[in-house]
């Protein structure tokens, strides 16, 4: 997705000439497909290709083996040009069993290559996948190339010298498959070998067996090429996918959860504050808690609370006591935190609330992505309870958004919600490592001495922010709470005029955040014209590519991507009104669309998808076509 280069040059010439390949690894949830995909991603990144990934796994940790609902898949799109999405259609599908084939084969482009582990296509597994006949034999896969290999048997053979039990030996299948994939795309095995040695440092036999499987898969590819197509109905050739042109600098791969965690750490450092992170385990947000819990040397305290409410309440308590309070969850947990968010709004304490959105409502689709918590973020609290909201568009963007969320929280003494989603959290992309010295600090000041005229805990600065006063500061004792407070004093005050005024101040303070936010730009295309495609969050990639193709085809289309969901950039209304039509593709039933209509009276039209899968470029292209005709 978005590397630095692409952000700097969104109009770079198209891509169609350059090569890219989409590979999907699919298997049982116990087959290690996410690991295989992750390692393939690493080797691809190290080869300099640009890439985007889409891990897609079931909610069950180990669903019953061989079942359709237990299939776990990992898709990677990589190429020698800018990659913005995980790819619409795979070119290669690696299916480790019949269920994986059945649930994934329809996505494969016509003529694409299927590599199937024929050893798993026995009657029992075929039954579980609800195949009456063996699809590897009955000709039903004719529109694709098919390569059937008994990967199970080949793996068992390769790891024989290590004396593993049958079950353990079969666990090396994913490494055999990875070896084959590495050969296909001429990737280096060494990083994987190093990783295996580290991972199984205490089990050298297991490490060696996995390395042997990896090497065997790789060797098989070489041999297969030499022996032509004597391997069944398909054949293998290796393909070179070169490095993508990228801005000079040092790169690594990063997932959204990693980048967001790093951004929070960076934000805390730029604010000059120690961090307190209160969390409660929930998919897909837990990874942030995991990352931060290992960073104690950065002044990070992590607290796994007894529930979502305690997680945010403790973060509020820590902010009150002078640390940077942060909490994180996904939709259901965010719902539980609602009342406490109101407390942070009322007591005007800085706080960052991260929502890694997933499919809803209720438990919904825990492991699938969606953008359906926008209403919850903007409107989802009792009372007039305004709160700044920022949405990240990609893993690397999550780093910058996290810093921005911290800045707004401490400069405006307000809770801030940072929206990401399951796709961003889990997806990986190459990331040009930021130069820390280029990040602008925003040091925090606490009120530490008695002001002239006495202590007023709710006095305001030019941003309408109140002073931050740490308990423990000599002589500045005061009381705060969730009950409405008198202007300046902070004493309990239920007065009618006072509540009116305080509500207005809280609104104006948050609206004032727009003063510190850049004007809304046009990500691609020009201001004014026939059609604006407006997006937010992780739909950036498919929208950008679809608009790029349309612009190159001479169509009058622009892409507007909104990062600041609340308050919105000041020029957004005028910008939207400069187009004849506005469409809003979202992974929900039209939430940003409603917000835009409400704020600007523009006739924004929804383009909705809530299947738990990201938009494809083709889907956005279709919507563009429909709205231009």
């Amino acid at each position, binding site marked *: 997705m978005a590397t630095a280069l692409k952000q700097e040059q969104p109009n770079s010439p198209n891509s169609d000439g350059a090569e890219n390949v989409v590979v999907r690894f699919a298997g049982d949830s116990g087959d290690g497909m996410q690991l295989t995909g992750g390692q393939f991603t690493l080797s691809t990144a190290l080869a*300099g290709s640009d890439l985007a990934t889409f891990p897609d796994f079931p909610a069950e940790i180990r669903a019953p083996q061989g079942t359709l609902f237990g299939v776990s898949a990992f898709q990677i799109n990589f190429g020698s040009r800018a990659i913005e999405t995980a790819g619409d259609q795979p070119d290669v599908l690696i299916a480790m069993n019949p269920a994986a084939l059945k649930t994934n084969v329809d996505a494969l482009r016509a003529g694409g290559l299927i590599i199937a582990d024929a050893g798993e296509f026995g009657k029992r597994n075929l039954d579980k996948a609800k195949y009456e006949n063996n699809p590897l034999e009955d000709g039903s896969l004719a529109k694709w190339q098919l390569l059937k290999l008994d990967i199970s048997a080949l793996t068992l053979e390769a790891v024989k010298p290590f004396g593993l039990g049958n079950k353990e030996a079969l666990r090396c299948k994913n490494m055999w498959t990875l070896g084959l994939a590495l050969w296909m795309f001429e990737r280096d095995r060494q990083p994987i070998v190093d990783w295996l040695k580290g991972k199984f440092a205490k089990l050298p036999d297991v490490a060696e067996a996995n390395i042997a499987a990896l090497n065997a898969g790789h060797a098989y590819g070489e041999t297969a090429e030499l022996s032509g197509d004597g391997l069944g109905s398909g054949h293998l050739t290796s393909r070179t996918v070169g490095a993508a042109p990228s801005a000079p*600098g040092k*790169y690594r791969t990063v997932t959204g959860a990693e980048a967001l965690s790093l951004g929070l*750490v960076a934000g805390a450092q730029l604010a000059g504050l120690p961090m307190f992170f209160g969390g409660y385990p929930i998919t897909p947000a837990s990874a942030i808690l995991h990352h931060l819990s290992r960073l104690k040397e*950065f002044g990070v305290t992590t607290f796994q609370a007894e529930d979502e*409410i305690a997680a945010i309440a403790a973060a509020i308590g820590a902010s009150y*006591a002078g640390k940077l309070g942060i909490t994180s969850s996904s939709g259901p947990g965010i719902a539980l935190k609602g009342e406490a968010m109101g407390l942070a709004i009322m007591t005007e304490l800085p706080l960052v609330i991260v929502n890694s959105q997933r499919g809803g409502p209720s438990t919904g689709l825990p492991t699938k992505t969606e953008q359906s918590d926008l209403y919850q973020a903007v409107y989802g609290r009792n009372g007039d309870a305004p709160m700044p909201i920022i949405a990240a568009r990609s893993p690397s963007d999550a780093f910058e958004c996290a810093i921005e969320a911290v800045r707004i929280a401490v400069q405006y003494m307000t809770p801030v919600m940072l929206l990401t989603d399951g796709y961003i959290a889990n997806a990986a992309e190459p990331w040009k*490592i930021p130069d820390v010295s280029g990040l602008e600090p925003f040091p925090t000041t606490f009120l530490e001495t008695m002001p002239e005229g006495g202590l007023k805990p709710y006095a305001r600065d030019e941003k309408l922010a109140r002073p931050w006063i740490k308990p423990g500061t000599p002589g500045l004792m005061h009381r705060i709470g969730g009950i409405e407070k008198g202007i300046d004093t902070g004493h309990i005050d239920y007065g009618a005029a006072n509540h009116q005024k305080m509500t207005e101040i809280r609104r104006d303070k948050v609206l004032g955040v727009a003063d510190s936010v850049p004007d809304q730009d046009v990500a691609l295309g020009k201001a004014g014209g026939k059609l604006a495609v407006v997006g937010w969050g992780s739909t950036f990639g498919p929208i950008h590519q679809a608009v790029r193709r349309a612009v190159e085809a001479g169509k009058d289309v622009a892409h507007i991507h909104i990062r600041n969901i609340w308050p919105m950039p000041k020029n957004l209304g005028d910008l939207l009104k400069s187009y004849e039509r506005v469409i809003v593709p979202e992974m929900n039933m039209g939430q940003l669309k409603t917000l835009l209509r409400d704020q600007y009276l523009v006739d924004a039209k929804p383009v909705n998808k809530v299947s738990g899968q990201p938009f494809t470029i083709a889907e956005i292209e279709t919507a563009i076509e429909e709205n231009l005709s």
Partner: protein
Amino acid sequence: MNEMTKITTTLKDWETDQEVRWCPGCGDYAILKAVQRTMPDLGADPSKTVFVSGIGCSSRFPYYMETYGFHTIHGRAPAVATGVKLANPELDVWIITGDGDALSIGGNHTMHLLRRNLDCQVMLFNNEIYGLTKGQYSPTSRQGTQSPSTPYGSVDRPASPCAFALGAGARFVARGIDIHKGLPDVLKAAHAHKGTSFIEIFQNCIVYNKDVFEEFAAKKTAADTQLHLMNGEPMLFGKGTKGITLNRKTLQLEVVDIVDGDWEAADVIVHDVTNRSVAHMLIEMQFGEFPMALGVLYDDPRPTFESAVVAQNEAAAAGKTPDLQALLSKGQTWTVAEGGPEL
């Protein structure tokens, strides 16, 4: 409490300029005074003291203490206090809560606060009723309590705050009565205990549950209805005419008569605040058959949560430099040179 420099203050230093808004005659007034009177004796520093409360009549308490104060949301004071104490372990943290706040809506947080053993004092004002919402029965109301929400009497059995606390892992459990002169001593013991000090205070709600504790709180009959526990002292009441002993066959407590003050002959138990089993039995004593056990029932410190967190944070950070640039560059990296990728 913390190891801290003792400060000289007077009762006046702990009073705010805010008008106290409890009902006239409410037991909360007596508790407020007891706390304000005790703070100077503790040598406490108002600048380092934080009162955190939830929601309910009792939870207005912080507004009346000239300290740092946070009136939070219903049931969540323990969670907020946990964040406060973890963020700054130097602070002396008091939690003010009620029976509904701590045991109904906030029961989960109370349980985890106690099991973690955060260093703080929890004052649970138990009036066996929801006062601020106008008199509904609460989780500590006795069976049959008639209230606006239970016009035919409540049918569910009440929770015992001290049994709950001990069951959740509390290392300090005490009981007091709002107007009782012994309350400051209980507060002092709670403050001296390092860890979560849990104090149940019987508090008279004169509007919605008037005199519900009268049978043991009344001064006139107190000698026979109250057992004042003192560490190292025999468990005597009724002006020394009665005592508590352990029946070694049934393993149950029993009331015994003392003849000529010879409590040793009657095998009366000497209170040992570190004896968890006896603490359980004292808490479970049914009033009527037994007197109401008051004072420090249990006090046996263990390492606190925040000290463990700080120690682990320090150990994990030891010898590491917080180099953000190095952190961002972790894992496998590659470099793209000027003019194109470097393979």
